[in-house]
């Protein structure tokens, strides 16, 4: 997916509560239904993000350096 699409996706995530709820339940299906085209690695990365977590928890799981 192009960088600009990812930026739009993040913006939508931040500003659209209904979209956020759908993403938390079914991220890949929601992204596809909204017309975002994710690459294979982006789909895998999205699946590894637990979108129900707080920023702190997301960071804890991203931080191992």
């Amino acid at each position, binding site marked *: 997916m192009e960088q600009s699409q990812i*930026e739009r996706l993040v913006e939508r995530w931040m500003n659209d509560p209904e979209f956020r709820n759908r993403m938390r339940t079914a991220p890949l299906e929601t992204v596809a239904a909204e017309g975002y085209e994710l690459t294979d690695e982006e789909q895998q990365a999205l699946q590894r993000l637990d979108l129900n977590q707080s920023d702190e928890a997301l960071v804890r799981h991203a*931080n*191992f350096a």
Partner: protein
Amino acid sequence: MNSEVAAPSFPVLNGRLPTDDQPTMATAAAFKDAVDSLRRYIGGTEFGPGLRPLLACLAGPLDQHVVPERPPFLPLILPLLVRGGIDGRAERALPVAVASGLLFLSFDLLDDLQDGDDRRWWRPLSRGELLLAAATFPATLPQRLLLGVGLEAEVAAALSHALSNGLLEIAEGQARDLAGLNASYADPVAVEASVAGKSGAQMGLYARMAALAAGSGEDEAGQWASWAHGIGTAGQLGSDLQDLLDPVWSRDLAAGARTLPIAFALHSLDGDARSELLVLLDAAKVERQAQLQAIEQIRGCGGMIFAAFRSRIHLVRSEQALERLKCPPAWRTLLGRLPAAQTLHDLLGAEAP
């Protein structure tokens, strides 16, 4: 300066020879020996009286990194795991692990100097002496060490080549990083490339050297480098996020760094919101309250979630590289455990030294 510095000797695990079905034990034993060897090297008894105290300033950060409660110290653990994945003989990567540890600690010193930090373990060295150490050590110690352990000429040449290229790639990433300090705009793509060039390339180099020293060809060594590159990049992105969530003080904000979440915010915001963030970022160099407000803005425009997502992308790339590598199943399991290991204990369990 003493120009005749002897190569260090490396113990052979004191009889604790590993087998293919004991990767965790073998890695733990080799890790302990790598730490001991690195400490002895930094102790610098072979070095002249001028260099000895300079080398000693690398010991402080080493002590901080190699405790079971901390994340696995990648410069030491990566070469051991790569060698284990190739032939089950993690202990044979000891010289590469020590060379990688020296490189990392030297870069760490350089990084701290560039950030304007003041570390207690530097005292009583002057800034001039620290600069001499940061300029000299990465360009000399790993090469000297690796070329002093009796490698075949072809392997030594490949390692020397990998080191030169790797050092330049890391310097490129570091240079981009420095150029972005205090910038009013930062392109997230360029910032991520800088992280990959700096941290990813560094970890990739350690893995590549271990593979080359094991006799791997360029293609296989490149795959191992890709595996470690992804881990290093993801780890640094995670560490940059962690800095913003530090409950006391963000060192990155204080240094004027433009890490990925900050760059994303600067890129996404416009007009008054962006101007406001720039004012906050400037004040955040010295004021905690401004840091907290800046972090709220960064969080509010999705900078955190974006950086966390990008971090996962690099982990996926690392996993894909590992899938392509030939590797005994027991070692593959241990290798696959590394990215999720929050501590050395998570990785090596009760075997963690």
